[in-house]
């Protein structure tokens, strides 16, 4: 009985316990630091803007004609249904040349770029994408007359795509 009490409350054992805790926490911190250092830089709204600029060049980005459908609240960022439809007659002289999708906060701003032609009949595509965080997704349509149209949608993600999860 007396022996156990000494062990629990003795100043000497308290000291070792504190040292042990300090050692453990510093080890944990040390283990954490390298993983923070190797974390890839996330795409920022600025990098999304430069990715968009790389596609549209100096052309003006109009808003409208594009309909980007993504659920506003997503539980799992690993698969998010994403559909883009563009209002266009899709004739030989007036059609959608390309559709691009961009995001703000994934490690890379690009999501998908597709090329279409008048033979598509309807400028509508659908796919499933990954989103790492709550962010804005932008779809841009390039028309045959050289104009660009876009729509942006804000998406709330509860559980992001596991970019950092160790295997």
């Amino acid at each position: 009985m007396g022996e156990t009490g000494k062990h629990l409350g003795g100043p000497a054992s308290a000291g070792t316990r504190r040292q042990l805790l300090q050692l453990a926490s510093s080890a944990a911190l040390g283990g954490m630091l390298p993983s923070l250092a190797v974390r890839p830089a996330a795409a920022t709204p600025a990098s999304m803007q430069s990715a968009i600029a790389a596609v549209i060049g100096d052309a003006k980005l109009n808003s409208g004609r594009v309909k980007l459908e993504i659920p506003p609240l997503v539980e799992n960022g690993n698969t998010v249904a994403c559909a883009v439809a563009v209002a266009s007659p899709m004739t030989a002289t007036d059609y959608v040349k390309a559709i691009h999708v961009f995001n703000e906060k994934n490690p890379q701003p690009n999501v998908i770029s597709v090329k279409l032609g008048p033979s598509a009949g309807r400028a509508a595509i659908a796919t499933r994408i990954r989103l790492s965080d709550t962010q804005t997704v932008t779809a841009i349509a390039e028309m045959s007359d050289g104009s660009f149209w876009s729509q942006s949608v804000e998406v709330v993600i509860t559980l992001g795509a596991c970019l950092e999860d160790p295997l």
Partner: protein
Amino acid sequence: MARALIKVSPNPKRGEIIEIKTLISHEMETGFRHTNTGAAIARDIITTFVVTYNGEEIFSAQLFPAIAANPFITFHTIAKESGTLEFRWTGDNGYVASEQVKIAVA
């Protein structure tokens, strides 16, 4: 090897706009993840997807790591004539997969 699923109406009317749904099994490793020991996992994704209709390219897509695993892509085309739709996926590490679907236009 890779398993691809294609869904397209087999007997469309001439001039009808048909929807084509494609799905291929691929894990689409982003290249942004790390193992427990901190080693980076190399990127392994499908980068391009091209569809031809009787030899003429009707659709192509450039994919990025932000596409979910097992890429699912839906698009449209006009059923002009009977023939073959050929789907071709290419990616990192020499990945190539292709699939053909015949359609008979009424």
